């Protein structure tokens, strides 16, 4: 899926405490189907060190106080309004464009996919070289993959976030290195994760396990569900870490202090006060991770997914089928691509629905927890 950005410059928001005018750019971004507003604020002086430029910029863009100066009333104010209008217009356009994109994409798959959806399609295995039958092994494999990925990735991401936020001082070297690594990780192409997974998980870890356990034939040192899930967990780690850290930051300092003042140790405070107050953030992290990973094919190509499997995976060391990869297979590797077109539409629809369902389930749990918390 693509990235859409609509943005507009703005200025004139006055920060409450400092009474300083702030300027910035607001964007509505859509990334992997998640729409979020992005506000980048910057103090002008840091960007434009030259005072005269700052003066000019302020003259034209910031909100002037009420005045009788005709230049301000007739030129500056309308300019300012125009800029504001442009910002609003750009943002609106972005929203409409995104909504249109979503509707048209979903519409296409709904119209073409629904007629082929049937109980047989959902519950049977593919037959006749993937040109007939259903996609049940792929649904099963995808769901299992995402679950194992969450079980592996969310705790590690949470622990990392707790370490970064609770146990390190701002400005220390180690957390900065970790943060840099996490940010870099977020920018690595997913196929590179796939290669990493093959090299590290399958060959190094798996091979090592086989040696230690004394297996004569490859049990762990071959692509498997576990290694694919681990690779996806590594891929989604930055998302989890960032969202959990944000949640930890919202727990007020006074609440930690109250706990410590009652004689709780730092760990007790984290375990009993900070983490329970961050469950919604942890779940947000999981939701984003699921959303990101459920449709990813590249990382699992080398680490566990297979073309076709006669039976369901019987454990985490088995290989598995996956909806996204199945779609690729249907559309490029089939002997008769035209014949599988309805299958492709229906498979895509199921993949989208599955991703949405997993997302909605996590969102539902989160909102339940949230209402329980505040009451």
């Amino acid at each position, binding site marked *: 899926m693509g990235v859409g950005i609509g943005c507009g410059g703005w200025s004139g928001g006055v920060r409450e405490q400092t009474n300083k005018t702030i300027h910035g750019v607001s964007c509505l971004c859509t990334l992997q189907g998640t729409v979020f507003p992005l506000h980048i604020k910057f103090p002008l002086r840091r960007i434009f060190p030259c005072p005269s430029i700052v003066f000019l910029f302020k003259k034209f863009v910031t909100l002037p106080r009420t005045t009788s100066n005709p230049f301000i009333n007739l030129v500056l104010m309308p300019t300012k309004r125009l800029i504001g209008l442009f910002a609003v217009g750009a943002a609106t356009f972005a929203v409409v464009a995104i909504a249109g994109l979503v509707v048209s994409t979903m519409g296409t798959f709904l119209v073409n996919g629904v007629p082929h959806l049937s109980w047989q399609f959902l519950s049977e295995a593919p037959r006749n070289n993937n040109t007939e039958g259903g996609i049940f092994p792929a649904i099963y494999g995808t769901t299992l993959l995402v679950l194992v990925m969450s079980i592996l990735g969310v705790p590690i991401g949470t622990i990392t976030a707790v370490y970064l936020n609770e146990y390190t*001082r701002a400005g220390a070297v180690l957390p900065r290195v970790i943060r840099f690594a996490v940010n870099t990780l977020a920018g690595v192409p997913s196929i590179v994760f796939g290669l990493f997974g093959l090299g590290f998980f399958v060959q190094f870890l798996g091979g090592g396990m086989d040696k230690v356990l004394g297996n004569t034939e490859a049990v762990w040192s071959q692509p498997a569900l576990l290694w694919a899930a681990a690779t996806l967990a590594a891929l989604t780690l930055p998302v989890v870490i960032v969202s959990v850290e944000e949640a930890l930051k919202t727990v*007020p300092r*006074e*609440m930690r*202090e*109250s*706990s*410590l*003042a*009652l*004689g*709780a*140790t730092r760990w*007790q405070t984290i375990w*009993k*006060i900070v983490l*329970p*107050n961050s469950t919604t953030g942890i779940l947000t992290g999981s939701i984003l991770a699921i959303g990101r990973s459920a449709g990813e094919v590249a990382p699992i190509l080398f680490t566990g997914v297979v073309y076709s499997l006669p039976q369901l995976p019987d454990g985490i060391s088995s290989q598995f089928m996956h909806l996204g990869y199945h779609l690729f297979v249907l559309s490029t590797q089939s002997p008769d691509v035209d014949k599988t077109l309805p299958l492709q539409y229906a498979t895509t629809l199921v993949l989208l629905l599955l991703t949405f369902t997993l997302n909605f389930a996590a969102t539902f749990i989160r909102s339940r927890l949230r209402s329980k*918390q*505040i*009451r």
Partner: protein
Amino acid sequence: MGKKPLETKIQATDLSVYYGAKQALHRISLDLYEQEVTAFIGPSGCGKSTFLRSINRMNDLVPTARITGHLGIDGVNIYDSSVDVVELRKRVGMVFQKSTPFPKSIYDNIAFGPRLNGITERKELDRIVEESLINSALFDEVKDRLDASAMGLSGGQQQRLCIARAIAVNPSILLMDEPCSALDPISTAKIEELILELKKLYTIVIVTHNMQQAARVSEYTAFFYMGHLVEYGKTRKIFTNPSKKETEDYVTGRFG
């Protein structure tokens, strides 16, 4: 009530606190007496909260904080390396300016401290919760909804809950950092009444910006200014016949 002999509970000698390069407290020496209410007054940033927070070593949480001098509780220097901070904080309770109930039930809020101490028996916990609520004058208002969320209480009730939570671990000292600054007059009056009740059981140190409050609840008053202890003595004397010019200017409202 007969006059009881004054016993020193907290003894500071030449206590200085630094935040980074900035010195927040300058060689403070004063004795706080057992089962008395002592008020710390002074303008914002004068160091009174810093001093309060060094009594239960909350300043340890500030990475740049550095402390020199001696601060004894019952004759033991709490900044000695052999002192366990966690144990210390169990003996020195604290109530903050902003009431901070945990987002749990009223019962679980108060049971939080005792549970940390390993008390798990329901009967024992019930007893502690009830006793703490009675002592903090909150029991009658909440006895029918102990399982309801503490977040649903009013501001004044929340602050009394925080007091109940603090006394549930059975401390001997209670530190209060502007406990009424966010409360309406009626809630404030209730807390003040409560403080006068609690002083029978605890040594209380209260930081306040409200001069009348200091006069109403405290027996002793310390006036801080710019990190120095300017004057310390009987509250009545501080307010009616202070020996320092700065004190007089402050309590009469000429500055601050």
